[in-house]
């Protein structure tokens, strides 16, 4: 925690993204939108009080209502606070680092649906090591092949828990 406040205080101009206050407000608005969805769907199911107690939508409706009120408080505090938190939410270089993980991971998840988890994992690990770690191929191969192979042995053979498989595994007879 101390590190966070450490480097967010003096922000270089080109590192500016959005302030903590903006992000706080944005997330609060998202919460409010979600709360509205929850409330409207619960209302559809029936959120009133029947003779034998609450209907199916009663509990979620009030959950949504409380979420809405709490997020409104967060939003208002963020907007009208006398000491707004104008610190940088995330430095540009940090955001790049986060995206460097998030985007390949998203692609990886998509790839699992296409080719199964083992092949996708091998590709993902290899790509990550090559792109961010700048490792030579000789070091990449053992990790990228070894980890999925170990998973395969552990899950498919040892614990008999099937994981998503693709055309490659089918071709190999699994």
């Amino acid at each position, binding site marked *: *925690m101390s*590190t966070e406040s450490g480097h967010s205080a003096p922000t270089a101009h080109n590192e500016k993204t959005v302030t903590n206050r903006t*992000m*706080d407000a944005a*997330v609060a608005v998202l*919460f409010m939108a*979600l709360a509205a*969805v*929850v409330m409207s*769907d*619960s209302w559809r*199911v*029936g959120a009133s009080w*029947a*003779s*034998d*107690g*609450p209907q*199916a*939508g009663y*509990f*979620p409706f009030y*959950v*949504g209502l*409380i*979420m809405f009120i*709490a*997020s409104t*408080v*967060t939003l208002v*505090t963020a907007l009208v606070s006398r000491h707004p938190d104008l610190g940088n939410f*995330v430095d540009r270089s*940090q*955001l790049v*680092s*986060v995206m*460097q*993980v*998030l985007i390949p*991971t*998203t692609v*990886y*998840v998509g790839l*699992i*649906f296409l080719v199964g988890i083992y092949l996708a*994992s091998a590709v*993902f*690990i290899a790509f*990550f*090591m090559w792109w*961010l*770690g700048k*490792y030579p191929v000789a070091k990449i191969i053992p990790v990228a092949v070894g*980890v*999925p192979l170990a*998973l395969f042995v552990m*899950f498919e053979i040892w614990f*008999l*828990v099937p*994981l998503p498989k693709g055309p490659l595994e089918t071709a190999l007879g699994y």
Partner: protein
Amino acid sequence: MEALTSLIGGFGVLADPMNIIYMFVGIALGVLIGVLPGLGGANGVAILLPLTFSMTPVSAIIMLSSIYWGALFGGAITSILFNIPGEPWSVATTFDGHPMAQKGKAGEALTGAFTGSFIGAFFAVLLITFLAPVIAKFALQFGPAEFFAVYLLTFCAFVGMGREPAAKVISAMMLGFALAAVGIDTVTGQLRMTFGSVELLRGFDFLVAVIGLFGVGEILLTMEEGLAFKGKSAAINAKVVWETWKKLPKYWVGCLRSAIVGCWMGVTPGGATPASFMSYGLAKKFSKNGNNFGKGELEGVVMPEVAAHAAGTSALLPMLTLGIPGSPTAAVLLGGLLIWGLQPGPLLFVEQKDFVWGLIASIYLGNIAGLIVVLTTVPIFAAILRIPFSVIAPVILVICAVGAYTVHNAGLDIAVMLVFGVIGYLFKKLQYPLAPLVLALVLGDMAESSFRQAMLVSQGHLSIFWSNPLVGSIVTLALVMLVWPLVSKVMARLNGHKEPAAAE
């Protein structure tokens, strides 16, 4: 004394050598999980949970709870050697632990931390042994109204004792409740918030949420901080251990204080993290060497560890007796109980004696084994941390994906996990607490059904929550907890007006 005979029976369960092996495997895995960024007690147990489906419940809970103890121990290693808290509850350990390591006293700091952990856990397990049967017996008389009152108290305690802004705690908690409500309503069978999607019928599984929030979210945070693991090397030998142990007895008052703080925070779901901070703060205030805190005082390492471990262990007390977990990891263990077909709660002590006492006995042995394992293997785990992040990160993400998939054998859960990862990252950065979200997701259905059962009993009158002194006082206490942040703010403002000089 009934507890003692039951406990001896519990040790009998452990006599099975396989259970002892599971215990050691669990602890080694746990320390590994505690050391690695992105894997922690909660998501580590969540990922490994599906692998235990084929074991007997007793063996499974022994292994999974041992992972938890291992993770509690492991968090201290990274804090002291690398100044990186492996777990949130070991943040307070870095304050004095890392300065000690910089002075070349890493071995002493590690021994102090591990022994402190052990003391805390031991205190908490004594509490569990003697208090759990009493509470369980008492709770057998609980009706739905009483259970709802206890749930209410649990959630209100988050608001009253959380370090985060109350509005954010409530928002995060309500998000958990809303996600828990998705799917088929258990009472009427109606579909809620599925929006015509078949995939949403299953609802959101909290195990997937935990893996995303704590696993993927943590990796994103670690990436952002751009950590380069540059640590101090650790050397622990028998002499250092002995020298440190000789210093510990004079801290007994502090240890007792920290253990009490820890147990209190663990039973009420304050959790290990605030317990460790609180204990550090108290030690600093009361210690003769208080001014040296932050520069490398052994006492400043021991105290937060005692409290964190006491809290982590005592979090199992409400989980076993009432079915209400005191921490996210305890929540995952509770999920495990449900999957193995055991109903957590007071009946567990009547119907599953072997299971409960086997677990309690394994806490004793597990912590002794844990202390031995960490003291002897620290260099190995420290070496693992030197593996560059660009190798560790993709491997951990792959493990998270596998873990999320195996919960329900559903591919979509992997995508859900990723979304929860982003939510976890945003929440951490914006000070939304994750624990209330997870607990609400776990307990949402149960809290709702106990509420509705209570309403059926009273035919829709809320007065049932004040119908007898017990339920009335729990509900009142819960409401006090709920408004506590407001009260303390008003009091602070009133004081501020009286003495403006002191406030500025």
